[in-house]
């Protein structure tokens, strides 16, 4: 019997605003407990919410990015429940009329692109934090996070299995960072996902009963949790059991999900429009202004790179994995085009690919991010241009790049100082070749007897004699001519 795993993801992206969604308190992470909890955030009697325009703008940016409908009128509603980290006893959220409806996101699943539709995205406030360390058997409540603006993004249940769910979460993570509405810091909880998981027999049209898994604060945990949960459900169903719709918590230490007992009690959130807040009405000018300020989106950029720069798909994909990488590449590429006006596109792409691989490896080793690379895009482009124009060999370029990374100067200065120029002067190479042929009669004999490999040894000798600076292609050609001529 084969089973299909159906997943829908709810993402809570903390919006990158300075102040909270309904108060003027700071949203900075890591402050001492309750020092960023204002009268509004701790819900003193009599205080009222006032909506932060920047949070609304973030939601609009998102709506534009996913091609969703930006509702010209949306409504804030109260979601009522008691919890110590929810000071008002209700969360201000959006219910019947969210700010964004529909839209979709494209993600790479293996070699294929998959379009996943979104149900909605709505604005809401975050809750505080419960700290369960020992306070004489009590729980401590820190309300610094209470009121932090969130965009809750809900996908349709169109993801099939853990790998797709993770691909979706990664694509969403990249997108919210790309459009600058969320810093994406998962350790600090800026980007959190809940997964709704159900299973059904292959071919069934109806969805199975779903369980919601909370606390998925890394992509790895998400993959493990969904895989575990699907297995659990399949085992129950195959054993003739029934799935209870419930909220479950992923326990990364035991690699399993377990029922959240405290949330078991029947939900009845008693949503109703918040009388303290008028409907959010958006006008065309504001939306147009925001649209005009949107950065080029990753998909469009990827296609442009493939079309205009003739970059291979994998490379375009890698470059557009984050906006920083893409911007860095655009700067580098711009300089390179200027420096090598007549260069061949394919050659350029190969050289660019080479430098990117080198930089990628160096980043991995150093733990730095793309914005911290100590070599400017111009310097990198100069280096690549020296490969293309034949000044240095790839091998020498590796050495130059290493020196540049450690701050020894520009590519040209390092090449000059270390004497790494390739010898392209035909006369000089001819002399070297003549010397090597004279000194290695055995290899010459072997080659002439049909042993092609013997040529490699001769090339190696010439390169050695040039201390690596001879242009290998030139050496190769010259040797053949002399030997066969």
């Amino acid at each position, binding site marked *: 019997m084969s089973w299909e795993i159906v997943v829908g993801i709810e993402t809570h992206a903390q919006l990158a605003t300075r102040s909270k969604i309904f108060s003027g308190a700071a949203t900075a992470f890591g402050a001492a407990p309750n020092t960023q909890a204002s009268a509004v955030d701790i819900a*003193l009697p009599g205080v*009222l919410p006032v909506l932060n325009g920047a949070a609304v703008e973030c939601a609009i940016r998102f709506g534009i990015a996913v091609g969703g409908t930006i509702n010209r009128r949306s409504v804030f509603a109260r979601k009522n429940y008691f919890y110590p980290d929810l000071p008002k006893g*209700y969360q201000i959220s959006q219910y019947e009329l969210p700010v964004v409806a529909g839209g979709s996101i494209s993600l790479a699943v293996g070699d294929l692109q998959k379009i996943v539709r979104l149900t909605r995205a709505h604005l809401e406030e975050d809750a505080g934090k419960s700290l369960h360390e020992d306070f004489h058997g009590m729980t401590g409540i820190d309300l610094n996070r209470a009121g932090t603006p969130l965009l809750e993004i809900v996908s349709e249940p169109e993801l099939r299995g853990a790998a797709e769910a993770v691909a979706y979460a990664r694509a969403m993570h990249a997108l919210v960072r790309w459009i600058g509405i969320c810093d994406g810091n998962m350790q600090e909880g800026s980007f959190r996902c809940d997964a709704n998981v159900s299973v059904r027999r292959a071919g069934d049209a109806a969805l199975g009963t779903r369980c919601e898994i909370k606390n998925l604060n890394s992509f790895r945990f998400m993959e493990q949790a969904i895989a575990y949960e699907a297995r659990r459900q399949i085992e129950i169903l195959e054993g003739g059991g029934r799935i209870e719709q419930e909220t479950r918590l992923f326990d990364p230490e035991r690699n399993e999900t377990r029922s959240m007992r405290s949330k078991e009690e029947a939900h009845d959130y008693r949503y109703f429009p918040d009388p303290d807040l008028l409907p959010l009405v958006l006008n065309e000018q504001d939306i147009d202004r925001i649209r005009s300020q949107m950065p080029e989106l990753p998909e469009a950029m990827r296609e442009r790179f493939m079309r205009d720069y003739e970059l291979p798909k994998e490379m375009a994909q890698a470059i557009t994995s984050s906006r920083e990488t893409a911007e860095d590449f655009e700067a580098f590429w711009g300089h390179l085009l200027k420096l090598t006006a007549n260069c061949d596109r394919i050659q350029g792409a190969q050289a660019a690919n080479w430098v990117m691989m080198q930089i990628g490896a160096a980043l991995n080793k150093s733990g730095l991010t793309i914005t911290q690379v100590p070599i400017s895009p111009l310097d990198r482009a100069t280096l690549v241009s020296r490969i293309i124009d034949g000044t240095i060999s790839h091998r020498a370029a590796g050495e130059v790049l290493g020196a540049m990374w450690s701050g020894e100067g520009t590519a040209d200065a390092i090449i000059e100082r270390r004497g790494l120029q390739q010898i392209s002067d035909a006369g000089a190479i001819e002399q070297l070749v003549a010397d090597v042929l004279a000194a290695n009669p055995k290899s010459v004999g072997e080659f002439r007897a049909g042993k092609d490999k013997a040529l490699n040894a001769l090339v190696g000798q010439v390169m050695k004699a040039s201390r690596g600076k001879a242009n290998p292609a030139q050496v190769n050609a010259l040797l053949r001519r002399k030997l066969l001529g």
Partner: protein
Amino acid sequence: MLNSTLSELAGALARGSISSVELTRLCLERIARLNGVLNAFITVDAERSLREARAADERRAAGRAGPLTGIPLAHKDIYCTRGMLTTCGSRMLANFVSPYDAHVVERFAAAGTVLLGKTNMDEFAMGSSNETSYFGPAKNPWDTAHVPGGSSGGSAAAVAARLAPAATGTDTGGSIRQPAAFTGVCGLKPTYGVVSRYGMIAFASSLDQGGPMARCAEDLALLMNAMAGHDARDSTSLERATEDYSRELSAPLAGLRIGLPREYFGAGIAPEVLARVREAIAWFEAHGARLVELDLPNSRLAVPVYYVIAPAEASSNLSRFDGVRYGHRARGYADLADMYCRTRAEGFGAEVKRRILIGTYVLSHGYYDAYYLQAQKVRRLIARDFAEAFERCDLIMGPTAPSTAFALGANRDDPVQRYLNDIFTIPAPLAGLPALSIPCGFDAAGLPVGLQLTGKHFAEARLLGAAHRYQQATDWHRRVPAATPL
């Protein structure tokens, strides 16, 4: 001096015939003498009052006095006052010293008024008799065996008994106007959004509106000039040009079209109330106003609609009282859920709990559409009735309440009977309209009768003007309550 209106007192302060300290002392002495009987104040801080009075006198001496500088007044205990107990009439907040000031409190402080204290009220403004107060009921100065009305009963009693020349109140379904009518004072519920709700402890957010209570319409206008105005901290506060609420005090009555809804003169109204109200209306007619009979067909639904919407909003607004960050917390409990349940069961009184339960019910799954959504739709019909009525008239008149002040304890166990008492005051807040109650005579027992004037949005000045003309010709508002002679 104590029987003077606020405008007269302002004149005396300006002339220097009395200082704010002297005036404040007079009020404090009277409070000390009569509050034991009236229970109008929950908190009085004489030292603070005198400190503010001295500051007001200094401000006057420095030539920086405004029209209200040095005037003593009282705030309903629903307004947060920094450094002072703010109880909302509840055990839940019996120990709550507010760390901040309400917008209205700030406004009056900036105007240089002197705070005499915080007045008694029905718990969380839920009630129309003051009997739901955790601190015991305030009494009606006309007959202390009767209620002063509510929820702003303490403010009404204080103004009526001349403990304070003016006080603030709040009105959700009649909480300013009904106690004003019961105690023979004047009270204005402004257009929704005119007075900031910031720092006014919420009962039903879409209905709550702060307003002034005083002896005459002219005083209400002065108070409104200080209270009203935009506040960025309240998203429902309106951004409008500054308005002088006194500007129509001398406007002529000739040609004024007074709407008389048939529904406001029907069965269930005490005959003497009806008689006094008709006499007042006749006066207006005699002085040039034109009477227009009209219908507010959906007004009979106002009480049922109100008792869906107000409890729904209240059930949510009062969720913050959970014993975690401020206020009462039960002593013994088994776990978190038990702490919540006991804290709230102990902290809230019976009426508040009743309304929380009703509100929880009408919002709960499966009932929302039939109750809450339906109530919001009928609310729209009620508002439309008014809009249509105001195409034919400039203001609407009728009784403020169907009876004069009832006896303490009457119908105590019959909430519905109590709710029906608000039948004439509930429609205006549902529609967000301004409405005013002024005294227009007495019944045979010597209890005051209130006349209600309702206007279209932002018609406060017009209502005050009409009321002022009437008060220039009558002296109901000058009468001193029998139980609290000067």
